[in-house]
């Protein structure tokens, strides 16, 4: 594709919705959500969670679809060009760098996490974890993540799975919008839902098991899946007054819907002017919420509570999402009735669904940078993907080699967490306040299959931006500043974490330079 080539279009509406939902449904739906809910008061967490969904999540979904489709009409599939089209100001395109930086940085480390889900699918099929106890399972994970610990995995194994996963992602994107991304979504999303539904049925029909500490379970000395659901959905009203619960719930809405990333806008840029975005945005958010609340909320916690009790589940969840998904769940599968075959099948379905959830998200992260290079520098699709693969694979080496030193954590926090709120705030201000509330409202209703309730115009104009500002200030104060100062970080990790930040900064500066170069090039050609 060159500067003047016609833009690709989605093949069908259902393909678009599945691709958008695939973008949103990711590892966070099945690993992060249950952990956040358990850590923040179970049922009480769900109250701010749904409030944030309505006041921030769905409005941002509309904003991103609106920004994307508007940008697409101006031949732009990435936020620098989209913001420039919405706001004719020299600074607008540079603000759009966030929508290039975040998806690319997240793509690099997300593919590493995704490659672990693929590796664990293979390990489950081979029965590699069949005889491991909890400490053994912990070492099995640690050996993969730390190249200096060859107890279970040879050094080449994480490299192999990383490069293979990255190559599959690039191969899918190289097949184009309809032949690659849309086809992947049409296969991956149904497989994901079927695997998850089968596992939910299996987990919820488990018999109660004797556990060492059955506190919080209905029967004496025994826990079952219902105790897990009770724990997950029983409100702790005292926790509703805690700011941290609101922050956690709003943060989860961001991660789960993939808003503030730049990838939803890129997908929406391939819509035509008359395509609906109002109803499609709701359908995308609702599909994601079904995957998260109905399926994600009924898997890990009920399963882990059944075999470890409520106290054990909380302790595991506090260890992190990976402890829940990669240590506790394989231990649960080892104890399922049905022997080695059932253990292998459950493992394949669990890690397989995580892989499909991951890859349908990661291909979307490649799209904005690819679109930017093709549309603004006139690169061919082949050249773009070749260059990006070399860069992503090189940067990914840092994660494979230095993951145990906290390299990935830095990228995950600054780009994959804090950065999302910044881009969401910037795009809301540009689309609603600068482009204008009336223009934004009109844009959302262009070709719309439904009328958005007028109440949401007020929400979009005032509530969502204020919510985002409060969230950013609050988050900066209680979390970002201490993290920036490396508080509580072991001394031996500080060097790697500082280097990790410098690499990120280098990417950001280089992308700003690219934007400057691209607009200079367009000005010389008279197409700016």
């Amino acid at each position, binding site marked *: 594709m060159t500067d003047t080539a016609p833009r690709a279009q989605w093949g069908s509406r259902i393909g678009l919705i599945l691709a958008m939902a695939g973008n949103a449904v990711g590892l966070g739906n099945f690993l992060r959500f249950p952990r956040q809910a358990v850590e923040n008061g179970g049922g009480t967490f769900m109250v701010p969670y749904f409030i944030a969904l309505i006041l921030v999540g769905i409005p941002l979904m509309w904003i991103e679809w609106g920004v994307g489709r508007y940008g697409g009409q101006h031949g732009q599939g990435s936020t620098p060009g989209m913001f420039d089209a919405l706001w004719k100001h020299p600074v607008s395109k540079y603000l759009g760098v966030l929508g290039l930086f975040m998806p690319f940085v997240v793509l690099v480390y997300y593919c590493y996490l995704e490659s672990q889900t693929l590796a664990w699918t293979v390990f489950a099929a081979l029965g590699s974890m069949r005889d491991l106890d909890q400490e053994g399972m912990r070492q099995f994970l640690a050996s993969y993540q730390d190249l200096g610990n060859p107890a279970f995995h040879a050094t080449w194994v994480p490299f192999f799975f990383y490069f293979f996963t990255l190559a599959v992602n690039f191969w899918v994107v190289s097949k184009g919008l309809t032949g690659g991304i849309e086809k992947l979504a049409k296969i991956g999303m149904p497989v994901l839902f079927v695997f998850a539904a089968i596992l939910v049925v299996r987990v919820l029909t488990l018999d109660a098991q004797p556990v060492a500490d059955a506190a919080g379970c209905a029967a004496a000395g025994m826990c079952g899946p219902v105790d897990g659901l009770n724990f*997950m959905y*029983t409100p702790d009203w005292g926790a509703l007054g805690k700011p941290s619960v609101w922050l956690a719930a709003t943060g989860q809405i961001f991660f789960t819907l993939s808003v503030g990333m730049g990838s939803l806008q890129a997908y929406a840029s391939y819509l035509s002017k008359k395509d609906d975005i109002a109803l499609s945005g709701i359908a995308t958010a609702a599909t994601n919420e079904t995957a998260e609340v109905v399926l994600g909320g009924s898997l890990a916690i009920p399963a882990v509570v059944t075999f470890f009790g409520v106290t054990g589940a909380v302790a595991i969840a506090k260890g992190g999402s990976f402890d829940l998904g990669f240590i506790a769940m394989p231990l649960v599968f080892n104890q399922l009735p049905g022997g080695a075959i059932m253990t292998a099948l459950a493992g394949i379905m669990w890690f397989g669904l995580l892989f499909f959830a991951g890859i349908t998200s990661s291909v979307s992260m490649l799209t904005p940078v690819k679109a930017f290079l093709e549309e603004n520098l006139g690169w061919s699709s082949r050249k773009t993907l070749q260059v990006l693969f070399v860069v992503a694979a090189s940067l990914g080496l840092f994660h494979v080699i230095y993951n145990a030193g906290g390299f990935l954590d830095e990228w995950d926090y600054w780009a994959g967490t804090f950065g999302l709120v910044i881009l969401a705030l910037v795009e809301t201000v540009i689309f609603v306040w600068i482009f204008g509330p009336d223009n934004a409202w009109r844009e959302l209703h262009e070709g719309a299959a439904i009328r958005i309730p007028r109440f949401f115009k007020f929400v979009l104009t005032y509530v969502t931006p204020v919510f985002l500002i409060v969230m950013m200030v609050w988050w900066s104060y209680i979390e970002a500043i201490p993290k920036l100062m490396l508080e509580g970080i072991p001394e031996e990790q500080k060097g790697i974490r500082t280097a990790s930040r410098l690499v990120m900064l280098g990417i950001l500066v280089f992308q700003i330079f690219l934007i400057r170069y691209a607009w200079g090039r367009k000005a010389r050609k008279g197409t700016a």
Partner: protein
Amino acid sequence: MKTTALVFMAGAWIFVLGLTLWSFKRLLAEPPEHEKLPPPGSIP
């Protein structure tokens, strides 16, 4: 299952499943603009 937990869970499930089914029903009821057939007689 505890009544409060059941109410919470049922409410959450009904909300997300209801929203999903409603939105897909509406989406599938009306094809998007570019998938619609042109009016009869408009193609020479």
